[in-house]
């Protein structure tokens, strides 16, 4: 909406990440410049080893860049202590993983409430909040199920609920549908685009070109650099959200958009 005026959620300048030393030295990220505005839904594509996941980990403050600048909500986070990073993760970032990563011995409700533990919310309040979020995913009747009693798609929806529970400014998804069949994949993608429509910023790493149709912006990476970028709000948030007929069933427009994206 207010694209230019507001500070970007994420601003990366010449970001580098080096692994190994000496002969084995190689750059997983080799000068990445990226600006993400609030409300974008970005899909990052690229071959294995191109640095997608590394980029996601650095954005999610699980890893530190070797070089370059990273502004999160306009604030440099490079030099902050690990404890502050943890607090930022607790309050501003939501993770969705390929392998769901629910804690087996906790039930669905407790799993969803987990991130709130670290933002200092009271136990009962946490569960209430988690329950509210789960209702949005139509999983309320599964609140007291254990993770192993759920199907893959349900598990990932629980994981998405967990990523949303702390109302993060950015949601990071690393191949969220990688372990799911295509039907569940689309359910998950519908959920994500639903979340996106509510104004959330999402960065998703994926191998599956079909899924990029849900995104407002597609970035492909190659050898630690951004190869192609459909660009900052080319089809801006308002447009995309307002006109995209995807939310219902949308198979057709997906195919059309795919061609457009791939050129």
């Amino acid at each position, binding site marked *: 909406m207010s694209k230019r005026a507001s500070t970007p959620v994420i601003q990366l300048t010449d970001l580098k990440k080096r692994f190994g030393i000496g002969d084995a030295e190689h750059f997983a990220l080799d000068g990445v410049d990226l600006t993400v505005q609030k409300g974008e839904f970005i899909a990052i594509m690229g071959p294995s080893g191109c640095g997608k996941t590394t980029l996601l*980990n650095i954005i*999610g403050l*699980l*890893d530190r860049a070797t070089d370059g600048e990273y502004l999160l909500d306009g604030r440099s986070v490079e030099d902050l202590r*690990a*404890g502050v990073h*943890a*607090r930022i*993760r*607790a*309050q501003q970032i939501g*993770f969705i*993983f*390929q*392998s769901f*990563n629910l*804690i087996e*011995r*906790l039930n669905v409700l407790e799993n969803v409430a*987990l*991130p709130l*533990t*670290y*933002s*200092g*919310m*009271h*136990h009962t309040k946490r569960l209430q909040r988690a329950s509210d979020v789960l209702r949005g995913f139509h999983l309320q009747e599964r609140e007291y199920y254990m993770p192993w009693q759920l199907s893959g798609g349900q598990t990932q929806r629980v994981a998405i609920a*967990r990523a949303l529970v*702390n109302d993060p400014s950015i949601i990071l998804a690393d191949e969220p549908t990688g372990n799911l069949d295509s039907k569940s994949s689309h359910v998950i993608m519908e959920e994500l685009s639903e979340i996106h429509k509510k104004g959330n910023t999402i960065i998703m790493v994926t191998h599956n070109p079909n899924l990029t149709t849900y995104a407002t912006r597609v970035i492909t990476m190659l050898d630690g650099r951004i190869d192609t970028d459909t660009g900052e709000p080319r089809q801006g948030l308002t447009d995309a959200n307002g006109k995209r007929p995807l939310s219902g069933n949308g198979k057709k427009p997906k195919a059309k958009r795919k061609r457009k994206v791939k050129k």
Partner: protein
Amino acid sequence: MRLLLADHYRTARQSLNRARLRTLLTVTGVAIGVASITAILALSGGVGKVVSKQVAELGGHVAVVRPAAGKATLADLSNPTPMNAYSTSPLSEQDVETIAQLPATEAVAPVMTLSGSIRTKDGQPPEESIVVATTPTLPSVVDLPIADGQFIDSVTRDNTAVIGAQLSVDLYGTEQSIGKNVLIRGQPFTIIGILNRQAKPVNFNNIDFDHAAIISLKSGKLFNGGVAQIQQINVLASPGTNMDAFGQDIDQALRLNHDNQPDADVFVGKEIAQPTSDLFKFISLVMAVIASISLLVGGIGIMNIMLVGVSERTREIGLRKAVGASNMTIVSQFIIESLIISALGGLLGFAGGYFVAFVVSLFIPYDPTFEWSIAGWAATLSLGVGLIFGLYPAIRAARKDPIESLRRYH
């Protein structure tokens, strides 16, 4: 922070609950260590307690004079018989006189113990018996109620004896033995009094009066070539006396008799109650050390099980870090888990230790003592063990790289 602690507690309980058998075994390990330390402290404290209670019952105005013991070395413990066991007591009747003349002295009673058989004319000597020669003042310094008859006094004849209740039973099969004749070291004595049953084998006279035959000091001297061989002088001070100063007065007075040599030790107050045997102290110490080793083993058990838990929960740790747990949070989560184990072990061990102590006390002459300091030790040791041995696994958990942890077991 308080909230987070409550969460850690909840998390720890959940994860311990899930590995119940494992937790139980680890708790048992700590419990055994704490139990042995508790039992040893309770029992060794019991010895001192028995004596100090007796001293307190006498109003705390008792001073005890004993021959100065040479400094015992560790070698003495292993020598079959330490040298000073053969040295004669330097305490003499003159010393008793000297102490009696001190202004603060109310009563003074020498105690001379003799070995030798006590038997009836045609019976066997009982297994346990002791001959004590003393003056009629002994009952005023030591609590010695008479069940039947009378104590020796200034007008009773020399060949009379007062005997303990159990000795009477051992000799005649009854506690009613007044007027009977008993042979002490072959000499006939007439029994004129029976002592109340005391059941206090541990006391500051080091005499089990239930098995003793008490004769006059004069008769005792006759058995010893006419010389008094006094092992201990019990002194009762008049009420309100400063016992420390009184002890020094006695010491000064005795030095005049002994060429200014420190031949005698004077004990007042708590000193009387301290077990005098170095062997006892040494054995208690060795047992405590052995017990601490078992606690150490318990601690290693904690560390072991925590390390297993940490590596089993690598992914959970990674996830928790990803959703906002800091390293400190992870450390405290795992520390609390090990503290719960060790606290449970401490509680169980404390209770178990007292149980063992009470069972053991059925076979030894004194009861275990309860002191808050023992509870304090049990708590400190168990929590300390939990903290020390939980720290490394907790730090290891916190150091895990979240990316690595989440990637594992895909």
